């Protein structure tokens, strides 16, 4: 049976993983390659890496850091941030990523999704979306609007319309990243996660807000997601001040299994 995926998210700034709150006030956590090695050894299911300022600064992605991380992880590795063309995608794949995440650039140039899927297959193209609950209004029938450039710019696009279009264009997975919940450790926005899961047939990844194992379990059950992005719960230095504690991957997986969520079992012995 296909298991639910735990995906560690790296918001990378100058080669180091940082942790933001609602896309602001990033604080430093660790060098990306060190954290990658540690999480691989803890048997994380997947890692997603965002070069968080590449898009805003209009500069190419930090391929050196991508390469250094890729050398440490023998689980799937997705990279995003600052990807503007098929040539950029190719460079990231050749640096050792399996999947490409596009977000702001896909909104500016939706055909990029189609081009990427055509060139590398749809499984390679992850559409990440930054969504905010803006309430029902004209042009936003779901009540959730898509934002870009680190949640700085509103697009006027309805979240559900956008993910459907993204799927049609060739996205193989969709990340639903709640701006309101990002770094708050108050749980995923289950309403929009479920609405996206119901609207498209490709796998969905819940993102933004997981602070406890219960939140993660809710993302899979009530949210209908196939993958859950976690970061605060693993390594946010702020979590303690929020009355919560950091947990290891094994602890999280065991707790999820106890709650009836199918996860990749922790492998105890070395094989070779």
């Amino acid at each position: 049976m296909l298991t639910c995926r735990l995906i560690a998210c790296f918001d990378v700034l100058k080669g180091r993983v940082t942790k933001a709150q609602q896309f602001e006030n990033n604080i430093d956590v660790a060098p990306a390659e060190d954290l990658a090695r540690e999480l691989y050894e803890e048997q994380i299911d997947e890692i997603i890496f965002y070069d968080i300022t590449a898009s805003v600064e209009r500069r190419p992605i930090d391929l050196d850091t991508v390469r250094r991380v890729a050398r440490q992880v023998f689980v799937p590795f997705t990279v995003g941030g600052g990807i503007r063309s098929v040539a950029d995608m190719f460079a990231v794949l050749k640096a050792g990523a399996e999947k490409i995440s596009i977000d702001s650039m896909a909104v500016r140039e939706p055909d990029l999704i189609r081009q990427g899927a055509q060139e590398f297959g749809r499984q390679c193209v992850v559409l990440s979306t930054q969504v905010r609950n803006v309430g029902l209004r004209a042009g936003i029938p779901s009540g959730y609007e898509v934002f870009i450039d680190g949640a700085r710019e509103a697009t006027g696009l309805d979240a559900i319309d956008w993910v459907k279009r993204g799927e049609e264009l060739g996205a193989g997975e969709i990340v639903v990243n709640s701006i309101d919940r990002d770094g708050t450790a108050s749980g995923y926005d289950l309403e929009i996660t479920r609405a996206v899961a119901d609207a498209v047939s490709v796998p969905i990844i819940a993102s933004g807000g997981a602070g406890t194992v219960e939140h993660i379990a809710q993302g899979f059950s009530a949210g209908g997601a196939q993958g859950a992005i976690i970061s605060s719960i693993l390594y946010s230095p702020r979590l303690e001040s929020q009355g919560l504690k950091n947990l290891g991957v094994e602890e999280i997986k065991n707790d999820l299994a106890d709650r009836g969520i199918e996860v990749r079992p922790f492998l105890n012995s070395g094989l070779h």
Partner: protein
Amino acid sequence: MIGVIDYRAGNAPSVGYALERLGVDYRLVANGDELSRCDRIILPGVGAAAATIDSLKSAGLLEPLTKSVRDEKTPILGICVGLQILLEHSEEGDVAGLGWIPGNVKQFTGPLRVPQIGWNSVKVVRPHPLVEGFPDAGYCYFVNSYFATPSNPDHVIATTSYGEDFCSIMAHENIVATQFHAEKSGEIGLSLLTNFSTWNPESMSS
């Protein structure tokens, strides 16, 4: 020396990093000359079957690869789409495959989300040196919308279930292949790459 076929539709660098970690000698191979210097081949693959075959052709690799695998019986490991193109035909784009293993490639039908993306359980159904030491229910990382249906059940080494049971490890003579990404399946996947790096097809009794 393992030659990892490096072509546009592949993820050769990831496979290379895994071999590097294992201390296995390898080189990325982009043309026929380089291929002739390798005594083992890994054919990685991401993307569509037709694009994969086209990019092998346009790199001038198809002919030397065929000679090496079919005439010289060089051991080869196909991964993901690198497994699917080994069969005779794929529903993906309705294209002919290399036909080195009898059978076809079909699309998942049914209610589950496609592509299948994630860790799924691989159940060994037939012993093979490639899966020596493999756990009873080893979880491996899959990304696929299509799956192989080899005509000969003897070629099926392991199966996985996604709506229906499908072949997740396939083997025939000097050819082995995994539908999952062995290079991205954690320590289990790495153990399989280690097994491949020392496998000698000629010493097998069958």
